[in-house]
């Protein structure tokens, strides 16, 4: 084992340290706070690179058995359930394997870039120090989540990530919309967390341990997967419950509503949430406990279909959006759908590969969008932009690289990762392949639409854009370079796929499927070309298309009315049910309590007659009682003699 592995705990500790320092000491000095925060996250980044190097030199023995460094955290004795020997130990520690190393690298890199960028973007904001404190806490939570050795530790950091996203989305809390968005994000993900917690309890109940690797060893072929209810096995139920957590966190279909609203936070926060931290936590969790999902084919199938549906669903919405950040948000949803679909198809490597490349180019594009918004003084509608290409050379170029990468243009990182996912779909399920390919076309189209509308075309006279300072452009350049070269890590024989794969699985060399690659290239390029024709050359009028399908356009622009549907459900069904319960509370629950009170009052009024207030009556009662006691003790039966010690009598 490499020497670096035992120091993995330092990686989340550094941002935590900076959070504490900023919160308690340096809050009054913004520049000092940001410097501390950046130094700490860069230290973590260096450590992450060191660990990554260690993983590369150690080879694939880490895939057989990951390195774990643990302390005992909680011990419960006489546990009545589970297969353990009557006691349950939950440890707190760090788990290092190639997946962790990859995530550490991506998270610390993106977090560093975002923090450096934020120095320029948040310049002059009142909450500058607070912002960096939150950023550090966010980074700490995500890094702790990545390094977790067991479900409980993961859940702890999982909730911390949710909390930090709440704080950062609602960072400008004086805006009503930001407050609402923060609450929405928190509550929506809470729905998913409930499922995850249930899943964890199910696992604990059956296996008596929460450690990932121990669970992996237990859920082997020898595990008796008993049917619980109606043909659903225990593992399927558990896996499904665990999966609800990622559905909320990674914005899969029914719980995706919080993610586009999360755009209310400062733009670098969106970059962090959407590229490296919050949303990929769900995908990461599924990859981390991939053994659990693999043991349940039904859940796997569900995941693949849900992912594919989310990808298409979000991509169609993105086509009709006008807000630059919302387009990117729906694009994120769509790409997360891709990752989930790949996981559902069993292609964990492809999914993680896409997670990594997506982190690069999505962080790049969000930071680019932030640069644009900064230059245009908080304008976010793409139709208010235009002609930025000439004024903002660095932002424009790097953004274009991001668009090409996400569109899957050959040679860039997105091409390699998306191609792996499409190949997996092609081999497993042709329907998913067709839908995913169509989504790829849509992705290329709406991203190019965004680019052509915002960056090319006529300049707007009321805009006076200028290039952002170097602190903002430097991260853009670094991320752009990674977006270009990031895909090549898969090419060597002992490349990405050799390291990042499920525990204990055989390494299979994936050869490129030239048919799939060719089709996706054609689709990507035609998407870009179509957008070019519509929005740059104006050869096809976009207004005409809208006029032809007014209904469709309206539905897409209103995001399929999902928010309205939820609102309707809450207003009518939840509130209605609440009214019924309110009635029940007022008339039944309160009725019982009032009846009890009345009963006590009634008996009180009955028995108070005994209290006459007459001194001599009391004296008489006392005397007669003493006489009775005396008689009982003296002549009473044996059973009454038990009273003697209390009455002090003599016999």
């Amino acid at each position, binding site marked *: 084992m490499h020497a670096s592995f035992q120091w993995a705990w330092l990686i989340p500790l550094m941002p935590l340290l900076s959070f504490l320092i900023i919160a308690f000491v340096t809050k009054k000095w913004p520049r000092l706070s940001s410097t501390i925060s950046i130094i700490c996250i860069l230290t973590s980044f260096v450590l992450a690179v060191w660990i990554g190097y260690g993983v590369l030199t150690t080879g694939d023995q880490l895939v057989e058995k990951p390195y774990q460094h643990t302390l005992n955290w909680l011990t419960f004795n006489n546990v009545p359930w589970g297969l353990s020997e009557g006691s349950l130990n939950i440890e707190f520690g760090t788990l290092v394997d190639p997946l962790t190393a990859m995530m550490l690298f991506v998270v610390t890199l993106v977090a560093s870039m975002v923090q450096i960028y934020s120095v320029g973007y948040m310049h002059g904001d009142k909450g500058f120090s607070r912002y960096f404190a939150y950023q550090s806490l966010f980074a700490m939570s995500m890094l702790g989540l990545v390094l977790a050795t067991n479900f409980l530790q993961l859940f702890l950091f999982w909730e911390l990530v949710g909390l930090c996203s709440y704080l950062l989305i609602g960072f400008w809390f004086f805006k009503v919309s930001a407050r609402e968005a923060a609450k929405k994000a928190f509550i929506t993900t809470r729905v998913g967390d409930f499922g995850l917690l249930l899943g964890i309890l199910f696992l604990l109940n059956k296996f008596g341990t929460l450690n990932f690797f121990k669970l992996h060893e237990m859920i082997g072929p020898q595990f008796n997967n008993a049917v619980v209810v109606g043909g659903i096995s225990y593992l399927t139920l558990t896996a499904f419950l665990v999966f609800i957590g990622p559905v909320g966190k990674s914005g899969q279909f029914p719980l995706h509503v919080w993610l586009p609203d999360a755009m209310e936070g400062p733009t670098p926060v969106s970059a962090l949430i959407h590229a490296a931290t919050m949303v990929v936590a769900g995908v990461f969790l599924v990859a981390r406990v991939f053994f659990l999902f693999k043991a349940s084919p039904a859940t796997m199938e569900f995941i693949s279909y849900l992912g594919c549906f989310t990808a298409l669903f979000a991509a169609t919405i993105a086509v009709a959006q006008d807000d630059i950040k919302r387009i990117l948000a729906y694009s994120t949803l769509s790409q997360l759908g891709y990752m989930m679909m790949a996981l559902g198809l069993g292609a964990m490597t492809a999914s993680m590969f896409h997670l990594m490349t997506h982190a690069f180019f999505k962080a790049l594009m969000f930071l680019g969008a932030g640069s644009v918004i900064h230059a245009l003084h908080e304008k976010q509608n793409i139709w208010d932009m235009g002609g930025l290409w000439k004024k903002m050379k660095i932002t424009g170029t790097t953004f274009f690289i991001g668009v090409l990468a996400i569109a899957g243009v050959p040679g860039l990182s997105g091409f390699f990762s998306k191609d792996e996912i499409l190949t997996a779909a092609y081999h497993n399920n042709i329907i998913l392949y067709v839908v995913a390919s169509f989504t790829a076309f849509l992705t290329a189209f709406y991203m190019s639409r965004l680019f052509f509308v915002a960056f090319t075309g006529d300049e707007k006279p009321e805009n006076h854009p200028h290039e952002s300072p170097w602190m903002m452009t430097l991260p853009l350049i670094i991320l752009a370079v990674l977006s270009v070269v990031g895909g090549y890590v898969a090419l060597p024989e002992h490349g990405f796929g050799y390291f990042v794969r499920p525990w204990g699985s055989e390494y299979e060399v994936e050869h490129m499927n030239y048919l799939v690659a060719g089709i996706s290239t054609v689709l990507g390029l035609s998407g870009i070309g179509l957008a070019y024709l519509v929005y740059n050359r104006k050869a096809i009028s976009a207004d005409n298309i809208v006029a032809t399908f007014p209904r469709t356009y309206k539905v897409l622009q209103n995001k399929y009315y999902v928010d309205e549907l939820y609102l309707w459900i809450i207003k009518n069904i939840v509130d209605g049910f609440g009214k019924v319960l309110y009635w029940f509370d007022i008339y039944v629950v309160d009725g019982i309590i009032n009846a009890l009170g009345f009963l006590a009052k009634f008996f009180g009024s009955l028995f108070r007659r005994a209290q*006459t*207030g007459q*001194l*001599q009556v009391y004296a*008489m009662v006392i005397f007669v009682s003493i006489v009775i006691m005396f008689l009982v003790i003296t002549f009473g039966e044996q059973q009454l003699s038990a009273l003697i010690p209390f009455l002090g009598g003599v016999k």
Partner: protein
Amino acid sequence: MSFNLSVGLPHYLLVAAMLFCFGLYGVFSKKNAIAVLMSLELMLNAVNINLVAFNRFLFNKPIDVQGVKHYLLAGHVSAIFVIVVAAAEVAVGLALVITMYRNRLSTNVDELDWLKW
């Protein structure tokens, strides 16, 4: 036929019991608070007679402690204690009765029922 006319323990106990019953009757039946207090004194004195009588008739043997003869006087001492305590009690009781009379112009215990519900 010969009668044992000497006074023994039963006679004392009988007198004490009668005295106690008179006192009890007074406590139960008298309306005047002062009369109630006086009846209470009767009851206490009945007890005193008992204490002294028991001491006199049951423990009247000298006890040899290191060559010196001692008599056990616990009953007598108890009786003196009772007298002292009774005196204190009557002092408090009379003070209460006087205060009560000043406020209500009455010492009738039947009217002293204002602490009931």
